[in-house]
């Protein structure tokens, strides 16, 4: 049976349809999950998509983390289920405490919308389990607050525990240690600023996001 990918929908999310489309193309069943729901509807993987949940008021992700659905996401993550936050979704997962650190304003104070080169830094995550370390991927970024920041001791731990999943080849936003994506200690919760769903077809100029999304699907089969 095809794995079912649940994509959260907050007021202000704007990448959810792209994520649905990309996963459908990989043969997954897909479903939107409203932020007010308390259940994930039997999803085998959860994606927190990009956008501006709750208008990014106070801080990106600060209000979204209190949505009823986030309790279900936390339970799902605690049970080992794959959870991936993309862009604003990464910010939401950090605010929710499911990932370490925080995304602050880009160092240059510019909104960045460009395709960047990423290097896979770890395979110990649901997003990268099927991609070789060192693989270069061309994937778009589209953010104002993507400057990954954490306490120095947290950064040491992330590196030591293989939780830095993706790095920028040419750091666009000031992120510590060129970090573009991190995972939790177990590797089943991942956040990344780049948008793999926007690199999922030759029509979009790159298909480099597909191996990452395919890894998430493969991880649901490994669990089931």
């Amino acid at each position, binding site marked *: 049976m095809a794995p079912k990918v649940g994509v959260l929908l907050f007021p202000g999310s704007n990448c959810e349809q792209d994520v649905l489309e990309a996963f459908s193309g990989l043969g997954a069943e897909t479903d939107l999950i409203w932020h007010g729901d308390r259940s994930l509807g039997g999803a085998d993987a959860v994606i927190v998509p990009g956008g501006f949940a709750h208008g990014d008021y*106070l801080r990106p992700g600060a209000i979204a983390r209190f949505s009823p659905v986030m309790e279900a996401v936390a339970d799902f993550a605690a049970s080992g289920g794959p959870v991936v936050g993309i862009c604003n979704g990464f910010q939401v997962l950090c605010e929710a405490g499911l990932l370490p650190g925080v995304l*602050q304003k880009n*160092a240059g104070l510019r909104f960045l919308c460009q395709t960047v080169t990423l290097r896979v830094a770890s395979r110990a995550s649901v997003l990268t389990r099927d991609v070789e370390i060192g693989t270069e991927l061309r994937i778009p970024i589209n953010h104002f607050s993507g400057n990954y*920041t954490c306490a120095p001791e947290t950064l040491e731990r992330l590196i030591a525990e293989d939780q830095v999943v993706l790095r920028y080849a040419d750091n666009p936003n000031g992120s510590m240690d060129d970090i573009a994506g991190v995972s939790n200690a177990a590797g089943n919760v991942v956040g990344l600023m780049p948008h793999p769903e926007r690199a999922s077809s030759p029509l979009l100029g790159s298909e480099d996001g597909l191996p990452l999304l395919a890894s998430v699907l493969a991880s649901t089969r490994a669990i089931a």
Partner: protein
Amino acid sequence: MRDDERMASFSVHVEVTQRPGIADPEGATIERSLPALGFDEVRGVHVGKSIRFSVDAADEATARSRVTELCDRFLTNPVIEDATIELTELAEAGA
């Protein structure tokens, strides 16, 4: 209502600032622009957030404790931000 149950009302001003050592690109950008305006003598520009509200509590210590918890859990991200809390007692609620 008995005297010992009477609630007080406090005006609260929370100032959210970047923690020491955390980059403040907005403040730095403002500071860099100042010489062009003739303000060469201005130093140490930092940009934060100002949040105002009122809170009811039995006493000031309780109010401060509740507001501190609110700041830790919601109004700031403790990884990068600090909060400075100012409390001012208003006229007693219901008085």
